[in-house]
């Protein structure tokens, strides 16, 4: 089996599913249905991460995003009761011009960044410090582990403080609502 074309086919399928599911997510009227299409998008993204030899990111994508974050989103939807025509229905009022502009801007910036990243390495022929062959020989999780607890120690400790802020924030918001 020709591995390159096989990977190419899988990539195209996963990418098409991701795009289609995110379009469906944005256009559904029922917020719960939107949330479910988002899960499909996350899954397609996980497949793309696998194609890039990023197994750990793929697993984290499924576990944290498709599992934990989606569950939180569904809980919040159920809590504020965003039923069609209900009090919290964002139908007309929620999408103001400001949010539209901000959304478009973020999309353009992210797309530009992605294009730059792809083209930069393509044109200059440079590769990153950790090429695929090397990562695969050590193992993806092992590479992440040794980098995270060596070179990137400081950002890692900062992450714990961020999570701490998240805990405190959740409790404060919930206590105020009660």
């Amino acid at each position, binding site marked *: 089996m020709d591995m390159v074309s096989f990977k190419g086919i899988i990539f195209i399928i996963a990418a098409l599913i991701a795009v289609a599911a995110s379009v469906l997510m944005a256009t559904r009227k029922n917020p719960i249905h939107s949330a479910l299409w988002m899960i499909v998008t996350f899954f397609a993204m996980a497949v793309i991460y696998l194609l890039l030899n990023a197994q*750990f990111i793929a697993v984290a994508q499924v576990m944290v995003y498709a599992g*934990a974050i989606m569950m939180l989103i569904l*809980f919040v939807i159920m809590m504020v009761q965003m039923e069609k025509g209900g009090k919290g229905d964002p139908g007309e009022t929620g999408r103001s011009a400001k949010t539209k502009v901000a959304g478009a801007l973020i999309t353009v910036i992210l797309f530009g960044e992605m294009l730059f990243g792809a083209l930069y390495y393509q044109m200059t022929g440079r590769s990153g410090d950790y090429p695929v062959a090397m990562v695969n020989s050590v193992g993806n999780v092992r590479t992440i582990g040794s980098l995270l607890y060596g070179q990137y*120690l400081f950002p890692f400790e900062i992450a714990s403080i961020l999570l701490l802020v998240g805990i405190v924030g959740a409790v404060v918001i919930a206590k105020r609502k009660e």
Partner: protein
Amino acid sequence: MIEYVPILVLMCFAILIASIIVGASYLLGPRISNKTKLSTYECGMQTIGPTRMKINIRYYIIAMLFLIFDIEIMFLYPWAVVMGGLKLFGFVEMLIFVIILFIGYIYVWRKGALEWE
């Protein structure tokens, strides 16, 4: 990458088989429906009020805490797998990470967010 193909195949298989089971039962089983039979079950009574009631905010706190601990554990897993190669320092940095989060845990406990009455 190739070792993940069975997962995709089995996912498709699972959906297919479950659909076949339901489909077969749909074809084999009787379908005699009437209005009462298709109404929502509420112990044989007329349903009262909206079904989708607001859920308690405590569930939200629990979900939020779960998310944060889940992310923390995602950091712990790569650490556990490289631990053999790390020095004592590697353990100390994880100790600091866990202690910072434990402060958050104690805060939540003290604030009574874990209490249910």
